[in-house]
């Protein structure tokens, strides 16, 4: 689960992690008032969307307007907010469709001596969290990794112990910090790693992390993603969820306990098991089609789950045919066919439906399908299924 920058910074503050003073606003008037309240000669107005690259991103409605702007008066804050709120921001991470900006964060301007990069993730090879830093603040870490990997510094740490102060100092010295800044870094880095572990983050990224003229580290950005599997112990985070940032079909699927990802193609897929669901998409593509979605209906494949799955797939207007691919194991094929047929009637499927079943009781299941009198195309194996479903669109 992703949260907004202003929410991340609020959580940082609770951990004693330095962030600039800022005010959340939802109207141009509030933006102007926020400028005055912050009281400085400059302020920064930042679009709040769940995607990076906001500073360089531009609005569809106002191609000259960036997603993050520096303003020097309350009037400028108001003018910019007027354009940004309700408009669609397109960044390198949003895709061409962009994201609508509904909230802005107005922050005090700071005296920036240096910009750095900081990221914490779980490293899958070392099986532990890792703190990644780089002197190239403001640049995407993937680009730095590609162009100058020697500028990336990593400290792996034990999740139970947290980042030790010596590890923080090691990074600080390697980044050329001195005196008071090293002490500031020691505190900042150990706290950010504690924040990461305590809150079950899958990512915490601060880009840029700045060193002020006074030698203090301050988080100028906050990109925080939580591990969905750990939300059961952080129930308060659910209040931070912004559903307008998520794909409605994916939200609906999640509620039904289905795993669904929307894609651009026109062949809907209903599959049991994540690996088989991914492979089914690959198979469609391999035979010249384009999958419309990833959908794992789970091992159970109950009537409710299958019905909801069909409804979600068919709610996508791009879908012109559907492939059901089920390997019946403990859950027998005949039981699955019953669910399929019930769902078929309930949903009223009007596009071609190809069903490929394999596994326990498959013969009984195939016979049930054939005798059903329903307009269902049966396939004998994976390749046959892919060819048939792609074929329905050819004519």
């Amino acid at each position: 689960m992703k949260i907004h920058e202003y929410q991340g910074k609020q959580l940082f503050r609770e951990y004693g992690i330095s962030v600039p003073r800022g005010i959340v606003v939802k109207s141009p008037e509030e933006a102007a008032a926020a400028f005055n309240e912050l009281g400085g000669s400059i302020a920064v107005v930042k679009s709040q969307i769940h995607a990076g690259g906001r500073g360089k991103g531009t609005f569809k409605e106002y191609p000259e307007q960036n997603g993050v702007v520096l303003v020097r008066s309350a009037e400028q804050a108001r003018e910019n907010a007027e354009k940004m709120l309700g408009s669609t921001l397109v960044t390198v991470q949003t895709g061409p469709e962009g994201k609508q900006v509904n909230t802005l964060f107005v922050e005090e301007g700071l005296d920036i001596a240096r910009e750095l990069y900081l990221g914490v993730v779980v490293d899958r090879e070392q099986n532990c969290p890792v703190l990644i830093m780089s002197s190239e603040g403001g640049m995407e870490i993937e680009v730095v990794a590609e162009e100058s990997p020697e500028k990336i510094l990593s400290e792996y740490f034990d999740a139970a112990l947290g980042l030790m102060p010596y590890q923080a100092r090691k990074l600080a010295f390697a980044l050329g910090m001195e005196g008071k800044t090293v002490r500031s870094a020691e505190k900042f880095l150990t706290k950010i790693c504690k924040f990461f572990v305590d809150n079950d983050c899958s990512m915490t990224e601060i880009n840029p992390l700045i060193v002020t003229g006074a030698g203090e580290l301050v988080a100028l950005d906050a990109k925080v993603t939580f591990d969905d599997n750990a939300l059961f112990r952080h129930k308060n985070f659910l209040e931070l969820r912004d559903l307008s940032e998520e794909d409605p079909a994916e939200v609906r699927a999640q509620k039904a306990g289905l795993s669904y990802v929307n894609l651009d193609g026109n062949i809907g897929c209903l599959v049991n098991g994540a690996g088989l669901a991914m492979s089914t998409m690959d198979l469609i593509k391999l035979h010249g089609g384009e999958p419309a979605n990833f959908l794992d209906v789970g091992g159970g494949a109950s009537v409710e789950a299958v019905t909801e799955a069909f409804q979600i797939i068919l709610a996508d207007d791009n879908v012109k045919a559907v492939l059901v691919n089920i390997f019946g194991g403990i859950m027998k094929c005949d039981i699955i066919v019953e669910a399929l047929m019930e769902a078929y009637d309930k949903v009223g499927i009007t596009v071609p439906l190809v069903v490929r079943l394999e596994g326990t009781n498959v013969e009984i299941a195939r016979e049930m399908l054939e005798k059903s009198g329903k307009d269902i195309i049966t396939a004998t194996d994976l390749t046959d299924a892919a060819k048939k479903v792609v074929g329905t669109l050819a004519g």
Partner: protein
Amino acid sequence: MSILVDKNTRIITQGITGNAGLFHAQQCRIYAEECQPGENILVGGVTPGKGGQEVDGFPVFNTVQEAVEKTGANTTMIFVPPPFCADAILEAADAGIELIITITEGIPVMDMAKVKKKLEDYPCRLIGPNCPGVITPGIAKIGIMPGYIHTPGKVGLISKSGTLTYEAAWQLGNLGMGQSTAIGIGGDPIIGTNFIDLLDMFEDDPGTEAILIIGEIGGTAEIDAAEYIKEYITKPVGAFIAGRTAPPGKRMGHAGAIISGGKGTTDEKIEALEAAGVTVAQSPADMGAAVKQAMEK
């Protein structure tokens, strides 16, 4: 011959009084009784607070330690819900269980990071989590896979995915090839056992003549496996990698199946495997055929 599971395997189920735990313990018992008539290898279960009870003939113990002492169990199958799973795994390790098979899906990654580190202190092996388990066809199955689709044979199967494992076993069966042992290693970012350890065991197992590995997008485990195969594995290896059409940045069902920062794509994995001399199936319909081809090379 086989790896991990053999005739000395004695299994307990942690979470045996839950629906899934009991159902699968029963299924495993039915399978074991067919394979080894007269032998009781599903020796009981653990649910804290329900010790002393019996469910469908399985004695229930309060602690894993007690279960080990009273039954001689050396293997556990864990169905405990995600919030309590880290605890259950470490309890098993601390009680001296040698093989810990964790079926549960949805364990927080941070829990697994802590568990993985702590397990270094114990001489045990963790399989999973978020996996179908382990089966040595004709001997025993420890997990949720349908037993009959796996036939005894000489292909060692290692897979990140449940249903794809079944699919592969089915395809192998149709080609007249069974499995020595099939292992679902799980689709989470942090797992107990990766491809390399199992490749090594299959290489040493006289009952295994060829190996099939099934991977997916996310992480670099398949690339590490490719490097290892190139260096140390002499037996023929076939492979399939799922998720060629998966968009970057999106989790494809499995918590670990995600392309992040341009890393973990199928293309780089397939390239590495092919460079290591592995026969990689382009279609999931050809997983069995890939092993056959690898053996004929």
